[in-house]
């Protein structure tokens, strides 16, 4: 079987980008939108075909899924031993990513036809979307780390263009710049990591790097820098790149701000695709991490764990619905990183790896759904802030239903997809590190809590005064919601342990009830708390209280219990934990980054007198420079 058609997966979005970018202005907006959407539809189909072919027709060779190089061409002869190739590599994770990216991207394309209608620069928006899809797809199918780096940066560029696209206000511009610069800063680590890795292994190719032949690392043996082996450094630096894109603490600061972009963009880039690139990178390099730099893997696990807790706590305090979702994304990405960090290699040992990819898949579905749902809500009420919303369920029935499904999924309610993937992660964490397991367990509860806080605030509670009656979004927007809702429900039934595993070999996975049941319970507790806190304060429509029956009344009447609860959660947890954490995030972590920027700008102001415009002063600096250099190099050294 050949996969020669896979090249089209890259070429079509590139072609639509060029077409829309160059001639889009001359077309009617809708035509240009349709061109982009149809192009993406075609490659979605192609990706599904490829996946079908890869997993079910060709299947395994000698019991493992092989790494197939579908296309490869020599690109640059770097030095005598290093050659950069550009090509397409198919293996379980890249094929899986093809499916994820094309699916979500296709949905976003359709959705945007409605959401962005009438916006200025509609054609440009579609051109950028195509560019983004192209670069993201190029990233995942890269055959070598160099190619990956190039597409990696291209993804950064297109994300910059998309975040800065929509609003003309300064915050959007600042956000896009921040996103770009923070991730570039992280990429600096990535680049140096690549240089280190290739310097010692003499190769860029993933196939060689992650293959069974470990002799390529022989050069690096015994090389240490500051007491840590050089491969660990390389791995940590590469992880730094991944942490930048996947917004791990403390490089996460760009993601919440990036919500200034149009909502479909948030769904595509900041929920389902680009931000998981970092997770994907670590997964891609997993054997290198596992065999050569186990310490780095620990770093991955703890950074992931910390980020997921940190972000979940902050998510509880946010009022902007997109920011809640952003922090939730951070938290879920932390989950995925952690799962990779605690994973072993091969067979059931590698359950963490499998779980991470599994969660990546399901998360893409339900988080894209949440963002698109949020977009639909914002479309209806023209506001991002929860306080402006309430009681929307009767105006937006489809949005309401799909949003509820997504919330239930992310909360880990049984038999929805999030339940399965999250459970696997908890299992992996449990076997590896009890502390991390405890953290994740807590986060599971927090997640359920803040998601339902969001849900109740939007769809229930007192109806706010709206400028005009909110109405359900057009078909172009609701259909993607329904499709994604379908995905959120059923994605969990895909047998990932048979398809996507650390060494390509399937293994048997089974439900661990000792972990699944408590995690479901804590999720339910989170939901209940949210329900108690955020539904009670409003006048509840009678039929709902009737429907909920005795349970509700019981809670309602036992208000002394309630008071205590309120006291603990609102007064203590909020004031002494969540708020300080949020404050820390806003002022210290963010502040440090801003401080660096400020320092640069200020120092550039301070030295301006060097360039005084006065000729003799130029001569002075010139001669003084020469004399000092003479003094240093001829007489001191």
């Amino acid at each position, binding site marked *: 079987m050949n996969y020669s058609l896979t090249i089209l997966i890259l070429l079509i979005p590139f072609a639509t980008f060029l077409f829309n970018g160059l001639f889009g202005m001359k077309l009617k907006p809708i035509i240009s939108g349709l061109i982009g959407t149809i192009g993406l539809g075609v490659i979605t189909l192609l990706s599904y075909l490829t996946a079908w072919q890869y997993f079910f027709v060709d299947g395994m060779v000698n019991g493992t899924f092989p790494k197939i190089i579908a296309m490869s061409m020599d690109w640059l002869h770097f030095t005598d031993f290093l050659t950069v190739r550009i090509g397409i590599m198919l293996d379980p994770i890249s094929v899986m990513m093809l499916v994820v990216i094309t699916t979500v991207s296709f949905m976003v394309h359709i959705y945007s036809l409605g959401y962005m209608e009438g916006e200025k620069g509609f054609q440009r928006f579609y051109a950028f979307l195509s560019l983004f899809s192209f670069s993201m797809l190029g990233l995942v199918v890269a055959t070598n780390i160099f190619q990956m780096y190039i597409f990696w940066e291209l993804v950064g560029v297109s994300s910059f263009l998309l975040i800065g696209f929509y609003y003309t206000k300064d915050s959007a511009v600042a956000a896009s710049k921040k996103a770009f610069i923070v991730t570039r800063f992280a990429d600096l680590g990535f680049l140096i990591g690549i240089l280190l890795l290739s310097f010692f292994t003499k190769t860029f190719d993933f196939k060689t790097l992650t293959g069974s032949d470990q002799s390529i690392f022989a050069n690096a043996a015994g090389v240490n820098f500051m007491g840590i082996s050089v491969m660990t450094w390389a791995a940590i630096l590469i992880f730094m790149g991944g942490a930048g894109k996947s917004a791990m603490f403390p490089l996460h600061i760009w993601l919440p701000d990036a919500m200034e972009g149009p909502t479909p963009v948030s769904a595509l880039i900041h929920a389902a695709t680009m931000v998981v690139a970092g997770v994907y990178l670590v997964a891609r390099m997993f054997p290198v991490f596992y065999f050569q730099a186990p310490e780095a893997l620990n770093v991955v696990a703890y950074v992931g764990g910390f980020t997921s807790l940190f972000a979940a706590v902050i998510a509880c305090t946010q009022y902007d619905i997109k920011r809640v979702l952003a922090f939730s994304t951070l938290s879920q990405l932390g989950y995925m990183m952690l799962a990779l960090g605690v994973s072993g290699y091969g067979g059931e040992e590698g359950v963490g790896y499998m779980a991470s990819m599994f969660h990546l898949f399901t998360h893409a579905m339900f988080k894209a759904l949440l963002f698109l749902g949020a977009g639909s809500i914002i479309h209806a009420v023209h506001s991002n802030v929860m306080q402006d919303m309430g009681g929307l369920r009767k105006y937006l029935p489809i949005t309401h239903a799909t949003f509820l499904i997504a919330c239930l999924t992310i909360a880990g309610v049984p038999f929805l997809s999030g339940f399965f993937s999250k459970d696997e992660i908890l299992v992996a964490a449990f076997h590896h590190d009890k502390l991390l397991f405890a953290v994740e367990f807590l986060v599971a509860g927090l997640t359920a809590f803040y998601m339902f806080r969001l849900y109740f605030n939007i769809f229930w509670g007192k109806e706010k005064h709206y400028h005009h009656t909110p109405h359900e979004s057009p078909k172009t927007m609701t259909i993607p919601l329904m499709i994604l809702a379908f995905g959120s429900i059923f994605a969990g039934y895909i047998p990932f342990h048979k398809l996507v595993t650390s060494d390509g070999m399937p293994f048997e996975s089974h439900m661990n009830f000792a972990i699944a049941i408590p995690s479901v319970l804590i999720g339910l507790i989170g939901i209940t708390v949210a329900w108690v806190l955020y539904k009670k304060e409003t006048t509840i429509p009678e039929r709902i209280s009737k429907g909920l029956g005795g349970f509700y009344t019981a809670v309602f009447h036992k208000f002394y219990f309630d008071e205590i609860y309120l006291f603990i959660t609102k007064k203590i947890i909020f004031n002494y934990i969540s708020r300080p954490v949020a404050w820390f995030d806003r002022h210290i972590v963010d502040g440090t980054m801003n401080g660096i920027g400020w320092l640069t700008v200020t120092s550039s102001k301070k030295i*301006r*007198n060097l*360039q*005084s*415009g*006065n*000729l*003799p*002063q130029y*001569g*002075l600096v010139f*001669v003084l420079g020469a004399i000092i250099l003479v003094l240093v190099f001829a007489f001191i050294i």
Partner: protein
Amino acid sequence: MLQGIPITSVLIVSAFMFFAGVCGFIIRRNMITILMSIELILNAVNINMVVFNKFLFPDQLQGQFFALFIVGIAAAEASVAIALVINIYRRLNSISVDKVNEMKY
């Protein structure tokens, strides 16, 4: 040592002249005097070249020819510089360097 004159003393004289020129470039504000400082600098270099040639390497005339070409180029440089100074004078009615700092920072 040539006829009782040590080479170092000649070099020191030329070094003095050179740095006098440099100093002049820095402290002067009139463009023509700056130009004169530059002539001092180039002249110091010429002395160096000639002296090295005569005292150390008299088997060839490299230093002398180098100095010769420097003189030629100095003339060309001076002519263009003076044309520019006159150009500035026409425009600003002044040849003070303090006047030509419209562009800065």
